[in-house]
């Protein structure tokens, strides 16, 4: 794909033989995943051919491949949510988390995450709101959040979030004052980013588990804010 050229090729690098308009037909819905039919020819054939060749030559067995898929599927945003909740409650942990994220996470949660990448935690404050994208492909902190959502990998999100971040955030229901710095981090190299959202008002005295329940996947990508204190009490009353 020519996606390494970012927005310049957004809607011109593949043929559309159908007539709906991708650009602004749905101004109030979040970025949509790419069309499935965009991939159902060359990419799927290539993927199948590669997988079968690797298996036949004994380089990566089908068994090993399925184990890896199971492992990837087992990672969920719940891990990230626990990290965020602990950072909200424990200032010493937060300081260590920001200074050396992976080591701190492994030590504090008795995990053994290894990665050739460097993890970076981006802290939201009342004056800075971070949001993460990979305009070149789909880099994502999988070790903490699992497999990225389809929209994160879409050309729509990747091309627009760097050009008009506030419009995209609004489509996620996220509206920020003009004087807040919206800081888009483009994950272009060897770093992976986890957003540490700002703790919602009215959650003082919440337990770690109650706080973790407010931390959505999208709030750790930065497209959304965490759930509000009111949303959980309302939920609990149901």
């Amino acid at each position, binding site marked *: 794909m020519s996606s*390494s*050229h*970012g*927005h*310049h090729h957004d809607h011109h690098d593949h043929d559309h033989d159908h007539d709906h308009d991708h650009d602004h037909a749905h101004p109030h819905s979040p970025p949509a995943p790419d069309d499935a039919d965009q991939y159902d020819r060359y990419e799927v054939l290539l993927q199948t051919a590669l997988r079968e060749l690797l298996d036949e030559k004994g380089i990566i067995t089908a068994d090993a491949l399925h184990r890896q898929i199971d492992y990837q599927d087992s990672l969920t945003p719940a891990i990230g949510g626990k990290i965020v909740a602990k950072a909200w409650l424990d200032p010493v942990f937060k300081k260590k988390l920001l200074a*050396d994220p*992976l*080591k701190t996470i492994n030590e504090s949660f008795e995990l053994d995450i290894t990665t*050739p*990448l*460097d993890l970076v935690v981006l802290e939201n404050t009342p004056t800075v709101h971070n949001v993460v994208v990979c*305009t*070149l492909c789909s880099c994502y902190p999988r070790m903490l959040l699992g497999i990225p959502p389809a929209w994160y990998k879409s050309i729509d999100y990747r091309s627009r979030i*760097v*050009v*008009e*971040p*506030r419009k995209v955030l609004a489509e996620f229901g996220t509206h*920020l*004052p*003009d*004087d*807040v*710095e*919206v*800081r*888009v*981090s*483009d*994950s*272009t*190299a*060897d*770093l992976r980013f986890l957003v540490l959202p700002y703790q919602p008002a009215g959650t003082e005295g919440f337990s770690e588990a109650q706080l973790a329940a407010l931390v959505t996947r999208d709030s750790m990508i930065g497209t959304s804010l965490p759930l509000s204190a009111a949303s959980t009490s309302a939920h609990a009353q149901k």
Partner: protein
Amino acid sequence: MNAIEPRPGHALPAGTPVVIRKQPPEIHCRTPFYLRGAVGEIAEVRGCFRDPSLLAFHKPGLPMRVLYRVRFKQKDVWPEYSGGPNDTVVADIFEHWLDPIDGVKKV
């Protein structure tokens, strides 16, 4: 941590104004097209990494390259940007894709 510390005198300090090079892209290029020619400033030195544009071709990725986080004002990237006045975009840029504007000394 997989990065190693740059040798003394081999990294630009945070705050240095830089311009992203407009050079022919490598085949496996990590510098986004929309930032070529853009002016920003070093936000952070992240250390030395093996060069992904060489690793992609099963080479050792040497010499290791200093990786920076470079911060740009949105207005400086997109002249018609209509979001907040303080909005920024930050990208990870390798040393061989940027130049200091003021001839700042490396530290």
